[in-house]
């Protein structure tokens, strides 16, 4: 089981903040995005189109990053901290 986290505008798009997903013992960001294309097409497209950043265990990831059982994967829209 891995944990998926959605932030900011993605929470509204995904309709949730967090979900748990069984992906077996190992997968990749690319494969996860393909899975999501079924369940949350908009999110899956944003990942593949690099409209959102993906992190695995709080580290920035790319499509080839390997995801292990127990990992925390987060979908991060463009940041806007810092006030201006």
């Amino acid at each position, binding site marked *: 089981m891995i944990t998926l986290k959605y932030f900011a505008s993605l929470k509204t798009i995904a309709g949730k903040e967090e979900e748990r997903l069984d992906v077996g013992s190992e997968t990749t960001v690319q494969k996860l995005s393909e899975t999501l294309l079924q369940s949350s097409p908009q999110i899956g497209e944003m990942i593949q189109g690099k409209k959102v950043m993906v992190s695995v265990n709080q580290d920035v990831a790319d499509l080839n990053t390997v995801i292990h059982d127990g990992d925390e994967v*987060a979908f991060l829209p463009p940041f806007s*901290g*810092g006030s201006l």
Partner: protein
Amino acid sequence: MRTIMESKVRIQREDFSVTGEIEAIKKSSRNIGGITVFLGTGRELSKGENISKLNFEHYPKMAEKKLEELRVKAIEDFKIIDMSIIHRIGEIDIGENIVLIVAAGEHRAETFKACEWAIAELKRTTPIWKRETTSTGEVWVQATP
């Protein structure tokens, strides 16, 4: 050691004291001659629209980790003595403090460079998001220049 490091990088709901943070960083060394501070505050106007309030959300753990990496890199790369970084989350009114960066060094030139780099880098790398409330509704700010 760990508590000192953590206190120099914080994400918090409550406001901070600029004077308090400056006095805290002064304790790092008797050789500080220049301190550059950047304070980001909530402004009323954004792209021509009137904002009534702001809301900040962060990715806990990752945001703090990014700020600490940023602090360590700023100290090393710009050869400053110390830096502290504080970002508020939650609801922020117009005129209120949002983000504070304090860069202390022996001379002023490197503290200006470090401080300006740090705020730009914070915006680029730290998972914090802003939601603006205007008369037409609420919107997550997707990209800031």
